[in-house]
């Protein structure tokens, strides 16, 4: 009964989404306020119905209703309740439902927080979101219905993939999807602006907070995915340039460019068509990511559900959405004009440089991801593009972008002067260079690559400090009381930039100083890694709720003193007949000790991976800082003010500079 209610709710949501997609858009075109007025209630209604469907599916999972095919395939009565709930979005069908749930959630949020927007704009934005919803609801109902029944019901389910039975993996997809789907708001705003023919700084101001919010979620989502891969896949890597990872990373790169470009469009009215193009690209890449993951066209470490028929549907949808909006762009963008003028050296031009570099980086990732497919399509053989390609293309493109990132916040809009900038940043440059030389020397042997990594990181820190210092300066006097008066948007930017620096420190240190040792350990054997001695004391059999495991005991000591005991596990999940490596990690601010069991070799000996990963937590810490920066910027006074005011603002009066 419950699954049928869910199914019915989905059908109703589809009908509402069609209404939401057609009437308001038509109303906006003909100036019919009644039709436009449909947008808000329709989007909220659609949200309620999809939420109901989601609740029904979650209920079926939690109550072990194995007469639902999706539940029987992806859950098991032995699965702990939180994972049963998480299994709701663990399958392809469920994750699509989550996708639509998020989409309608964003769309309902827009309908609530858009009271200060002109009716026409709201109608267009919600209309476009309604059309996207129609596409995905159709996709779900036609090719991947989460409520399909199974007759006769299964006795028990096939269980959730053991890899996914993990707290990190429980929240990773919702965060990632919040980001993916969140870009649909920026996309809808861009399309609405193109449709309305009014591409001024106002639409940039409206879509900016939404874009930032989506970007924050995407950042967190990618970070969780990387963290999960690190501790769950059992080989200590944190990023593999895997197609699925790239699929989430490309929208992030373009989203980052979009955030910056929106800032220019809002404040100076420049880059208008470029910003629109970025908004279209960010969402298209999100769709492409969905396509790549769901169609199975690319080989990947973790493509879980693949089905070519679904791929065809998503591809057609991608063609309509992206193709359609690019046609619209080609028709409307030439009339937009250039907007605010600026000199060759100015904050605008620096941001433009950053945008070009980010776009090039995204293009190279896209090329590397799709290249094997291209060759295969042309029958030129099978190849794979591995991490070395991405490392050797991505890093050189990002290095200048990070240099510009230090300069940008200090440059003036419209016109800046290089000698002046060099003067103001000279101390930052000195600090960066000196630290970059000293740090590797103190830590051990010096190499150019290490130094270069640290140079970028310290450059970001020092330039950010310089920027803060200048803001506090009154004449030659530091006015500390101004610290609290700086806008939160500014602090958000600083936090995000410092986050990049923290991230670079993490990456550089891990790449330079990590120790990875695969060893054979008998009971009593000791191995020294990263200043610690690790003693293997054998394994014992333990039973988990839905698995059995060999649990190793490794005593970590420093200078002969035992400091910690680690318990890596090798788990066996009988329902799926699969083995899982559960690494034991002693995590700290300055580095991790990582131990995972390989396999039994000989009598009671095991092959063991023992890794020391200095500063690896900084990688994810940097990402968290970036996301926090985004959230901080969202609490800026002007957004709170516009929420409180709730009345139409004149189009240009409120734009601060």
């Amino acid at each position: 009964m419950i699954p049928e209610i869910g199914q019915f709710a989905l059908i109703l949501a589809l009908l509402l989404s069609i209404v939401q997609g057609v009437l308001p858009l038509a109303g906006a075109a003909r100036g019919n306020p009644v039709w436009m007025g449909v947008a808000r209630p329709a989007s909220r209604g659609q949200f309620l119905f999809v939420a109901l469907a989601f609740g029904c599916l979650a209920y079926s999972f939690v109550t072990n209703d194995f007469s639902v095919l999706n539940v029987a395939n992806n859950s098991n009565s032995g699965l702990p309740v939180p994972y049963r709930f998480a299994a709701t979005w663990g399958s392809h069908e469920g994750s699509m439902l989550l996708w639509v749930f998020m989409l309608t959630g964003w769309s309902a949020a827009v309908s609530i927080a858009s009271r200060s927007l002109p009716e026409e704009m709201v109608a267009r934005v919600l209309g476009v979101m309604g059309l996207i919803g129609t596409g995905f609801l159709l996709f779900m109902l036609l090719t991947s219905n989460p409520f399909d029944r199974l007759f006769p019901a299964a006795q028990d389910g096939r269980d959730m993939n053991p890899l996914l039975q993990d707290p990190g993996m429980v929240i990773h997809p919702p965060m990632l999807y919040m980001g993916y789907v969140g870009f649909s708001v920026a996309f809808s705003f861009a399309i609405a602006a193109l449709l309305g023919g009014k591409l001024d700084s106002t639409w940039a101001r409206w879509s900016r907070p939404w874009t930032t919010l989506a970007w924050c979620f995407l950042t967190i989502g990618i970070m969780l995915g990387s963290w999960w891969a690190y501790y769950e896949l059992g080989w200590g890597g944190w990023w593999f340039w895997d197609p699925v990872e790239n699929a989430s990373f490309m929208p992030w790169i373009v989203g980052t460019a979009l955030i910056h470009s929106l800032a220019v469009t809002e404040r100076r009215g420049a880059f208008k068509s470029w910003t629109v193009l970025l908004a279209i690209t960010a969402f298209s890449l999100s769709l492409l990511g969905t396509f790549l993951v769901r169609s199975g066209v690319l080989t990947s470490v973790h493509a879980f559900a693949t089905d070519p028929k679904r791929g065809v549907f998503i591809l057609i949808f991608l063609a309509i959405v992206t193709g359609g909006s690019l046609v619209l762009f080609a028709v409307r963008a030439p009339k937009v004009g250039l907007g605010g003028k600026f000199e060759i050296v100015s904050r605008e031009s620096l941001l433009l440089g950053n945008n070009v570099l980010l776009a090039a980086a995204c293009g190279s990732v896209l090329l590397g991801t799709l290249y094997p497919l291209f060759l295969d399509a042309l029958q030129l053989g099978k190849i794979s593009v591995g991490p070395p390609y991405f490392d050797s293309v991505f890093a050189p493109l990002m290095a200048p972008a990070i240099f510009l990132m230090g300069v940008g916040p200090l440059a003036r809009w419209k016109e800046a002067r290089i000698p002046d900038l060099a003067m103001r940043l000279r101390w930052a440059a000195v600090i960066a260079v000196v630290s970059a030389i000293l740090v590797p020397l103190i830590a051990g042997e010096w190499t150019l690559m290490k130094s270069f990594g640290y140079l970028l990181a310290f450059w970001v820190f020092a330039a950010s400090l310089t920027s803060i210092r200048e803001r506090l300066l009154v004449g030659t006097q530091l006015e500390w009381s101004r610290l609290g008066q700086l806008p939160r948007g500014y602090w958000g930017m600083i936090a995000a930039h410092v986050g990049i620096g923290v991230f670079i420190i993490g990456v550089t240190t891990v790449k330079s100083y990590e120790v990875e040792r695969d060893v054979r350990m008998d009971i009593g054997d000791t191995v020294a890694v990263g200043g610690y001695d690790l003693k293997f004391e054998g394994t014992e059999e333990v039973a988990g709720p839905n698995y059995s495991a060999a649990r190793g005991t490794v005593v970590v000591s420093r200078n002969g003193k035992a400091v910690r005991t680690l318990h890596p596990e090798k788990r066996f999940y009988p329902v799926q007949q699969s083995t899982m490596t559960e690494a034991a990690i002693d995590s700290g601010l300055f580095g991790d000790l990582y131990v995972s069991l390989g396999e039994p070799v000989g009598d009671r000996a095991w092959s063991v991976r023992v890794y020391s990963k200095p500063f690896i937590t900084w990688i994810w810490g940097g990402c968290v800082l970036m996301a926090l920066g985004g959230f901080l910027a969202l609490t800026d006074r002007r957004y709170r003010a516009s929420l409180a005011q709730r009345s139409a603002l004149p189009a240009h009066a409120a734009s601060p500079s």
Partner: protein
Amino acid sequence: MKPRHKRIAIIAGGVVALSVAVGLVLNAFQSNLVFFFTPSQVVAKEAPIDRTFRIGGMVEVGSIKRHADGLTVAFRVTDTAKTLDVVYTGVLPDLFREGKGVVAQGRLGADGLFKASEVLAKHDENYMPPEAAHAIEQARKAGATVKQP
């Protein structure tokens, strides 16, 4: 600066950035693409000797031998037509089993022994890596016999 010059300068900057990116990509492609060969192709000497490439197929049943150090593993990869000797030192992935699909990346020695630097097996019990499936399919298309030893 005149607007026209400014425009030219911006375009020139864009072109420079773009060509640097293209250069990087081409350079990286040249040295970092990993080609894929089937055991039959390797045995027929179609694979390069001093370059990293990937092989795929099935781990032949009964072929896994562990060296005394406990970490070095020798096994044979077959596409059902031809087999290739592979040696690997390190911890193998959870799903590395006899009779299962496998993809290995490494270099071929002049003695015909494939030294793997990486062994990949996917985290799904019933899954065969596409490259491995491809190798087996190629061998079958070539009209090879299908019997396993």
